[in-house]
């Protein structure tokens, strides 16, 4: 099989007559770690949904792992924004993680290997003691970790995370960065964020989404390109210094 994880060619997407994505082409190889930046409402989440075949584009070609998104998406680990999940639904952390196993094997019930994998991922993310808690009772950071665990539960070949650092304390953000650095090279990582401190040295490439998609080499991501992206003067804040990160 080819080495492509995600490939978009000339994709256009509009809600009613409101264009959200225009002539978007991008290519992400297997094993690459890619960040997707952009202002709110710029189309970041829509881009992920197009990649996963949740919202089919009006025109253009989308492929995931060399196949149509509908065929390949069970091999994708997806973490939607945490706020999209319904807190009124009584589900435990373990039940949430098990959702990631749906479609991996057939059958009416979760198999022994499904349960084993879920336990593994829970332990990997330090959620073992919380697994029987209800999702609504967890803190913002714990919820986020549960959703990441769910995304990892299907042994994904592509991991797609939508705003994984929202509502997460700096400590949690650091843990996530370490986790992603560990996964890098093994599977493709697509991460949507508006948290610029997350664009670490591990990130291979950065795409900026604001209706159109522009690629920036990471070195170029300075206040000039930020200005261009957000259309207002912005200043880079070195979070890593504040947090005492080892990034220097």
């Amino acid at each position, binding site marked *: 099989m080819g080495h492509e994880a995600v490939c978009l060619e000339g994709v256009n997407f509009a809600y009613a007559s409101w264009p959200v994505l225009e002539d978007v082409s991008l290519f992400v190889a297997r094993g690459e770690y890619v960040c997707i930046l952009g202002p709110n409402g710029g189309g970041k989440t829509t881009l992920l*949904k197009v990649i*996963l*075949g*949740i919202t089919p584009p009006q025109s253009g070609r989308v492929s995931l792992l060399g196949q149509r998104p*509908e065929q390949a*998406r*069970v091999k*994708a680990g*997806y973490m*939607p924004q945490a706020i*999209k*999940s*319904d807190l*009124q*639904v*009584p*589900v*435990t952390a373990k*039940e*949430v993680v*098990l*959702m*990631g196993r*749906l*479609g991996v094997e057939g059958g*009416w*019930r*979760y198999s022994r290997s499904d349960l084993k994998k879920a336990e593994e991922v829970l332990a990997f993310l330090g959620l073992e003691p919380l697994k029987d808690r*209800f*999702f*609504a*009772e967890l803190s913002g950071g714990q919820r986020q970790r549960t959703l990441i665990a*769910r995304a990892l539960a299907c042994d994904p070949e592509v991991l797609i995370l939508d705003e994984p650092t929202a509502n997460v304390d700096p400590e949690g953000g650091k843990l996530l960065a370490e986790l992603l650095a560990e996964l890098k090279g093994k599977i493709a990582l697509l991460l949507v964020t508006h948290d610029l401190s997350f664009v670490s040295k591990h990130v291979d490439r950065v795409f900026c989404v604001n209706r159109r998609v522009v690629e920036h080499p990471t070195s170029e991501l300075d206040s000039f390109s930020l200005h261009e992206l957000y259309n207002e003067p912005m200043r880079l804040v070195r979070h890593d210094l504040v947090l005492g990160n080892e990034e220097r």
Partner: protein
Amino acid sequence: MDLGLGILANAFFITFLASVSFGILGTLVVVRRVSSAAGAISHSVLGGIGIGLFCERALGIPWGGPLPGAILAALVSALGISWVSLRFQQREDTVIGAIWAVGMAIGLLFLSKTPGYADPMSYLFGNILLVSDTDLFLTALLGMAVLGVVAPFYREILVLCFDESFAKVRNIKTEMLSTCILLLVALATVAMLRLVGLILVIALLTLPAAIACVFPMKLWKAMIFAGVLCLLLSWAGIIASYFLDLPTGSSIAVLAGAAYLVAIGLKARAPRA
């Protein structure tokens, strides 16, 4: 001919059968927040009843009658609401309101042109005297259909409720599943029409489930708990209405509402763990 006791026994039996589907579907309605859709469906049933009676009595169509009309109207409204919510989500609220009111209006128009005596009140608020063997049979059938859909697809339904876009990525047919649930809800409202009436049926569907959802428990436990509550509340309502000479449907609805208030009160007083 049965007197008094036979009617009561029928009422007890139909609530027993209906509690299976009401516990399960009510919990899904509450958790998915589609109470207003369920309300619109149950009210629009009057349209079907009116047309059904009109067909039977004015046009002499043999397969007419209130029950086939009610079932058809419930299914059509459920499909309509489902279609709108999938395709034009922003309009969902408006369409639900329209189906609610227009469905009832159509029913009253047809009833007014139906020869002979047709009392809308007994359809609106139920009449314990009208529960028939056909209702019992259909309610049992519905219970089996609900179990037949929800038991094998429990995991899929759980994801659908919690996080629809994730469900899509797991290749779950979310649109079909949510339409299926709404169709079953539509049939459930028809099943209890005779006993509690189409206006009050929504109370029996959602309040036991809402009580169950006040307390943290897994979804399947909430379904069982809601079913048991539905049974106890309706039996209590039937008994109260028998001894106090009150309308059955209203007694059940008021009891369910009171129980919900008590549950919320208990929850508010309980110390947080």
